[in-house]
């Protein structure tokens, strides 16, 4: 416990190559938030349940609180900041704002990262399927209805429906 054991990692975060010495016990989101000041990823439970910490690692949505920073060595990490900058989910973000699919917004970055995955698949989905897909992301404010609306609208637009 006195042993703040550290190790060197190199990874790509939102397209930028990063090399840092990290504490081995630090999880990925603490690293992103603390070391890189990417505060868009949030911590709601640090237990792998709420999804507020969702980030994309090598193309897959993961719970950033369940992954250690050292495990991201060599990986490509994309956070809500990265997804915003590339414009990949600009339509979804606009739909969230227009539909008021968020209140406090604490869940939104994780929710958007997860929803982006659904959109990437570019397959039609029913409301039930959208609800199912988002069920690993808790929202305590909205009751989900508006979130489902926003995702559904964006998906249908992308599919030209």
């Amino acid at each position, binding site marked *: 416990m006195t042993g703040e054991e550290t190790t060197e990692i190199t990874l790509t975060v939102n397209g930028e190559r990063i090399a840092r010495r990290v504490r081995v016990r630090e999880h990925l989101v603490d690293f992103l938030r603390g070391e890189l000041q990417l505060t868009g990823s*949030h911590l709601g*439970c640090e237990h792998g349940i709420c999804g507020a910490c969702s980030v994309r690692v090598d193309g897959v949505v993961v719970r950033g609180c369940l992954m250690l920073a050292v495990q991201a060595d060599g990986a490509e990490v994309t956070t809500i900041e990265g997804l915003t900058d590339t414009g990949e989910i600009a339509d979804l*973000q606009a739909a969230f*704002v227009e539909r*008021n699919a968020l209140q406090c917004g604490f869940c939104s970055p994780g929710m958007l990262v997860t929803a982006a995955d659904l959109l990437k698949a570019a397959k039609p989905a029913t409301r039930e399927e959208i609800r199912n897909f988002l069920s690993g992301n808790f929202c*305590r404010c909205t*009751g*989900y209805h508006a979130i489902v609306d926003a995702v559904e609208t964006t998906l249908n637009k992308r599919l030209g429906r």
Partner: protein
Amino acid sequence: MANDIPTKATLTPFDRPNSYVGRNLSRPGARRAVAGRGTYTDDVVLPRMLHGACVRSPYAHAKIVRIDTTAARKAPGVALVMTGAELAKRCTAPWMGTLKVFEGMKSAPQYPMAVDRACWQGEPVVFIAARTRAEAEDAAELVEVAWEELPVVAEKKTALDPKTPVLHASLGDNLAFRKLIDTGDVEAAFKAADHVIEETFEFGRHTAVSLEPRSMIADWNPANERLAVYISNQVPHMMQYLFSRTLGVPEHNVRVVSHDVGGSFGMKIHSYGDEVAACAASMMLGRPVKFIADRLESFLTDIHARENTVRAKIGFNKDGTITAFDIDDLSGIGAYSQYPRTSVFEANQILNITAGPYKHPNYRARATVVYMNKVPTSQYRAVGHPIGITVAEALVDRAAETLGMDPVEIRRRNVMEDNSYPRLTGSGIKVLDLSHQACLEKLVRLMDYDALRAEQALLRNKGIWRGIGIAAFIKGTAPGPQGLYGAGGAPIAAQDACTIKLEPSGNVICAVGVSEQGQGVDTVMQQIAATGLGVPFESVRVISGDTETTPYGGGTYASRATAIGGEATYQAARKLRAEILVIAGALLQSDPKVLDIRNGVVVDAANGTLRIPLSEIGRIGHFQLGELPNDVQPTLSVTHRYRLLDLPYIFTNGIHGAYVEVDVDTGFIRHLKHWVVEDCGRIINPQLADEQVRGGAVQGLGGALYEHCIYDENAQLQNGTLADYIIPMAVEMPDIVVDHVQTPTGQSELGAKGAGESGTGAAPGVIMGAVNDALRPFGARVTIQPMTPEVVLQALGKL
């Protein structure tokens, strides 16, 4: 009368062409949040900032024999180790969670951290500040506390038994409060009634679970002896008082700032010992100290709510007329009454609002509130309403069942008539401007009730068990100073205020005492200010959540922001408009009365001819004052305060409908669809109002179906993680249809009432009604919340 569709005859100032009232404008804050650019408290980093962690009591009740902090003090990165006793020495006086209005109420003095005895599991005992949170937690593990376990009061039902140990010897027993409301003659009414039915209901303790836990940074500056506290909170001015009063820093030297708040729901309006400890630590160290509760700490130490047992009786006649209600509530609160709002509000509200929609002339309601070795309960969204509404609606359903009457029909016969106000509820509370009949009829249409009933009957033949629930409600919103605040002696403003200023650019700054947690308060204030003044929405910027820059106000609680803060903002804007027109009149040599402000320009009221833009007024009013006559001295800044007169609350009303399917083999409840029709008066932003109702409903459904803080017989919490404490997920929740009847309150020009809790209050009642409707063919009935599969199977006699 319900004023649903405005006709020409009822056109108001809010129907002006450049009015933003009644329009869906999106929230600027939402754009930041979706880009990951929110500023939640944990996102803030200050120079030389340290991180706090707590040692907490592992026992529900135990004496602190000794605390050895030697090893912790030597641990890497540690700057401070402070025990409860050390913190108590820095406090001016202990907290006392009583209010004058609760006559006869008792509570024990409480320090922010346990001094010589811990009274609930999770009570803070030692606070540590270190370089990182991890190091603070490491050091916390090195603190050795020698405990001597004490007998535990874990059960509310036996808390008053003579054999049960007394939690606070100075109180004599474990009773916190008793209250009785008795109107009419309940006993005589029961004797005379054709039928009397009695039932007992159990409600499980649950909690708010804001996704962002309690978070704060205390920053004491020894050079000027000022304390700045950045805190995820709803009530900055109350917190200013709280920190000032507890730590002896003059109030004007305490600044409280709430940046983005990641959910609160009433949980972030209370005193928390760890937060005071972080302030004290910052004062001792002269450095900023951050404290972020983790999820386990949140479950253990955030206020809980609703641990109640209610025995209730209804008397009614063959024609469906309800003649009397009698309820007897037992509330198990925590080890102390939560300072400064108390822990007896919930019981008090149950007595106030139960059966509030109905015309029964006889009402008796009793509350008994007892202490236990658990974390204190206090106000959480819709305080008391979920319990009172569930109880009354379940009894009304049973009455209908007994008579073979439709649940809609019995409500039709018993709700207060829309043209009968002002009048008193059974509990003796004055209500005005309600619309039970209009809401009921609208709900029936919206649900397509008859078709649902037909479908239900059809599916029953196929062994599919669906149920329909209906639950009417009243909701106390926007408390006035005659009520529990103000008059009660709590240092919490029931008034609210707005300071509105015209800037040299012609843009407008609007600082408000109400605060934003994502409901859209800032946007609503912006719409109201723009409307009142006659300027474009974009030209107004709203400031909230900072005691340094906003006028003194109550913040956001009890669905008050739009009703109270909105009227303050509207009146402030009207006053500023009047002043601007006087200045314009002087410049234009016109009578101000013939001028108007539209879209940011002073115009001729009669024909809209442009006269002078506000940017000119702003420039002249700030820089070129020589152009004005000597007797015109612009302030270009107005503060207006508004409070409710003569009423304890603005009551609102509404009704929920629910359609569920129950799997009688597994006990699982599938919630298929939910409807809400409510009357929050004039609606400023329909989309935001609807989303308040939807989110609130799901929160109520969570408490009714899943959420439960489960304690064992030693008062140890069994499920302090989000894996074990279940909150609603997207897949379990239905679409929610929301509609409104708009009966503006006569208490303000704006006419808005509260909307934030209308979803929460009746959701548990309506879903229980629907489940019981589904179970009716089996002669089974659920009376326990949360209605887990186990509870359903027990009701069916299968467990």
